């Protein structure tokens, strides 16, 4: 009897533990940064860009090894009605706020504008560069840009911010080739401070690429010359400097930073007070969670106000739970497409080197299902184009060409290619074998562990490929492993980010997939064209022409030609669209966030999204 009782007790305990405990207290390695940030920072074309992409991929290194942070900031320490809680950009203790470091802490990572500011702020919805530190830029001729700074710009230590600081910041990349924006000088011949408030740029006439220049102007944070010249003298590499009290020009300063949270306090002496006013929250706090689900739960409870995380089925929060939660769109796809997660194909692997095989794979993938389940309806089914069909790029999207030449989910067409065009025969295991004996697979497709939506998408790719006689298996190593393997070209298939919405897109995205100039061989890190695709003759000329083109009609025509090369050669397959940033707000405390119905600011946390902070209102007592 005692044994029976014991058994029962054990069973009940086990039941409780497994049923309740499993989902939360599981020993799973923290599903760390979801594919949240990979799009945030655009790729830079030199080796120097390594740190950015590192920062770009997952905002910060996943936290599991560093002591998992305990409970996020105890609420109540700062007045709730004056504090905006944000999430999704910092996953481990911040090591430094030096924006030149490999992985700086929020908000000095990616292109956040709270502490350091850029000249211009990219607006994803309009595709424009909104004014920030600078008032405007003008092309005085085809290769000369004049930038005018706002009046009264100054640093947080009171010193004036002048054109000297701007020129100094960009010139740093001339001296230090490992800085992320050093590619700026491939396209710019000369940058001079022509006055206290004006800067003149002379573009390089040999490689004309105003797009990348615009992108760099909007993505490079201006640094105080008087502080950084001192640092240069110290002899330490600039990226190695640990700076916990950064002096920027922005409307916030770091208040405290710990393993639990980063807190910012408003700089009431902000230079932009007269131009932009002051942000509504006095404090901004970023609690540091160890994984996505912790953050999502806090968001659902109203402990986070403004978040950038992949949150499955967010609509349930307002439809079922009646919470004051919102995204950009009230209906599907809820977010604005801002990037194309790309399944890169190693075109040198036997079997995958055959464009018809690649096309058969493309036809086997169930894009609507991926959008519906893996992307939690946050995407429309991916189309076979490198140009986003919505937002600022929609004007370049050639729907007819995509329809006539592109692919979609169609197992029948895939079968036709394999059986009729290639003469492949199904083996006993249901996998096709080409007439020369090449079996279609097994191929591995990789993406980082914890990037939930991407892992799920690949599980679906693997499944539908097998149903169509192609052997593709998934593998989910840790994020640093995947990043390194992808850049080194050490993969068969890999789902990884390419350039998202930037001032230089879609050109930069076309370059990412089609250009193999400056792409080192396998084994050395490349920052685009991970599959080492060799483009057909004439592609380089088209790319250069498209980069230099300034009028929209020419651009559209050239982009379409380049897109056609992509469609015909299939160096990769776009699986879905993902937002530039997940834009999610809980209006329990702060209200007035912009939405598609009231789009006074873009759905962004970074760049032009800084403007959101100026207009939201606190309704907490």
């Amino acid at each position, binding site marked *: *009897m005692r044994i029976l009782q014991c058994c029962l007790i054990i*069973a009940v305990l*086990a039941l409780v533990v497994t049923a309740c405990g*499993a989902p939360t207290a599981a020993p799973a390695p923290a599903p760390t940064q979801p594919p949240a940030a990979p799009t945030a920072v655009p790729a830079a074309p030199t080796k120097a860009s390594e740190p950015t992409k590192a920062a770009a991929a997952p905002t910060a290194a996943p936290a599991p090894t560093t002591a998992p942070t305990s409970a996020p900031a105890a609420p109540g320490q700062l007045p709730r009605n004056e504090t905006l809680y944000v999430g999704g950009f910092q996953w481990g203790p911040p090591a430094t706020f030096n924006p030149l470091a490999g992985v700086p802490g929020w908000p000095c990572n990616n292109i956040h504008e709270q502490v350091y500011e850029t000249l211009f702020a990219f607006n994803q919805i309009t595709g424009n560069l909104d004014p920030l530190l600078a008032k405007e830029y003008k092309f005085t001729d085809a290769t000369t840009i004049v930038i005018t700074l706002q009046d009264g710009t100054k640093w947080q230590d009171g010193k004036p911010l002048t054109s000297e600081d701007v020129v100094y910041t960009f010139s740093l990349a001339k001296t230090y080739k490992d800085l992320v924006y050093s590619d700026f000088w491939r396209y710019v011949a000369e940058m001079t401070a022509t006055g206290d408030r004006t800067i003149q740029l002379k573009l390089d006439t040999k490689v004309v690429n105003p797009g990348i220049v615009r992108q760099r102007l909007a993505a490079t944070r201006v640094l105080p010359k008087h502080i950084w010249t001192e640092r240069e003298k110290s002899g330490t590499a600039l990226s190695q400097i640990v700076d916990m009290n950064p002096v920027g020009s922005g409307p916030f300063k770091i208040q405290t930073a710990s393993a639990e949270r980063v807190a910012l306090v408003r700089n009431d002496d902000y230079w932009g007070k007269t131009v932009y006013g002051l942000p509504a929250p006095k404090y901004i706090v970023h609690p540091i969670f160890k994984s996505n689900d912790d953050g*999502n739960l806090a968001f659902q409870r109203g402990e986070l106000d403004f978040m950038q995380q992949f949150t499955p089925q967010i609509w349930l929060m307002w439809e079922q739970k009646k919470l004051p939660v919102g995204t950009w769109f009230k209906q599907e796809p809820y977010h604005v497409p801002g990037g194309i997660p790309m399944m890169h194909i190693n075109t040198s692997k036997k079997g995958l080197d055959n464009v018809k095989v690649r096309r058969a794979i493309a036809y086997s993938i*169930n894009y609507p299902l991926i959008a519906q389940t893996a992307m939690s309806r946050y995407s429309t089914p991916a189309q076979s184009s490198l140009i986003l069909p919505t937002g600022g790029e929609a004007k370049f999207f050639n729907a007819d060409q995509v329809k006539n030449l592109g692919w979609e989910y169609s197992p029948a067409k895939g079968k036709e290619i394999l059986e009729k065009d290639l003469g492949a025969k199904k083996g006993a295991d249901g996998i096709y074998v080409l007439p020369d004996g090449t079996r279609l697979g097994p191929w591995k497709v990789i993406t980082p562990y914890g990037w939930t939506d991407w892992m799920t998408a690949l599980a679906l790719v693997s499944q539908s490929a097998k149903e169509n006689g192609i052997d593709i298996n998934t593998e989910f190593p840790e994020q640093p492993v995947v990043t390194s393997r992808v850049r080194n070209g050490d993969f068969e298939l890999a789902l990884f980010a390419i350039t998202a919405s930037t001032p230089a897109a879609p050109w930069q995205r076309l370059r990412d997939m089609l250009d193999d100039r400056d792409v080192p061989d396998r084994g050395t890190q490349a920052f685009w064209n991970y599959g080492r695709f060799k483009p057909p003759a004439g592609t380089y000329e088209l790319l250069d022409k498209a980069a230099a083109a300034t009028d929209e009609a020419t651009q559209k025509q050239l982009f379409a030609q380049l897109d056609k090369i992509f469609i015909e050669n299939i160096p990769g397959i776009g699986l879905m669209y993902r937002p530039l940033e997940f834009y999610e707000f809980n209006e329990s405390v702060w209200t007035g966030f912009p939405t598609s119905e009231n789009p006074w600011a873009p759905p962004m946390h970074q760049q032009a999204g800084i403007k959101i902070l100026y207009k939201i209102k606190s309704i907490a007592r």
Partner: protein
Amino acid sequence: MTVATSEHASFDSGSVFLTGLRKFFGIFGMINRRLLFSGCMLVLVVGFGVLGPIILGRDNPMKTVGGLYDPPSATLWLGSDNFGRDVFTQLMHGTRTSLIIGVIAGLEAILIGLLIGTMAGYLGGIVEEVLMAFTNVVITIPSIVILILLSIAISTRSIFAMGLIIGLTSWPWTARAVRAQTSSLRTREHVDIARLSGAGTLSLIIWEILPYMLSYVVMAFVLQLNTGILQEAALSMLGLGPSNTISLGQMLHWALLWESVRTGAWWGFVPPALFLTLIAFSLLLLQASVDEILNPRLRKR
């Protein structure tokens, strides 16, 4: 008086008979009920996993039948998971996978444990020292660490490979217990007689020692089976489960990743958790009741 005596006598004999009967059924009735209960549960679970898909004609757990976490309905009895697959079908196939892995792991652990335990216990001396030292070393290394490393090393893990990997880490306790039993058994007279008759070491172990601890081996196997299933669940929840198939742990893995608890999709995590618990519970109960039948000391209590 005689009547009284005979009455008394008959009463007496009746009471003895009844007590005996009560005793008999008291012990075996108790055991039988427990054994019956756990046995039935196990048969049901195994039947559900092995025969269920065949009877219901649901042979493909990977088929997409719904959307992202569709709630239970007349066609989707337990709703759909994050892939839009039928949870009920997955549950049947997952149970089967988990059981197969458990059996493979259990058999392997028992085999290794028996081999090392009997060798150490029978041969004694330096062999025993070395083997037991090795066993103790393996015990001190947390098995989950070895499991994770092994699983990562093998990128495509079949069900069979999974079972082998898990069995590889769970044998030491069996080995230790077997060694203890063997050392006591080897001093028994029938073993001496067999040895004097010229039997070799191997045949001695197999014919003279193993049969005497068969009951222990059976129980150890049930426990190892249980461990194997739970280890598989743990690994799968970490995303290191068998490739291209579904198991209970993998169902939990995806339910975790997709935050089915927060979104309220209980059908994502309750069925696999419940089934794991059911399997573990019935195996433990089975082990306990079998133990009681086979172990006279427990029976006396």
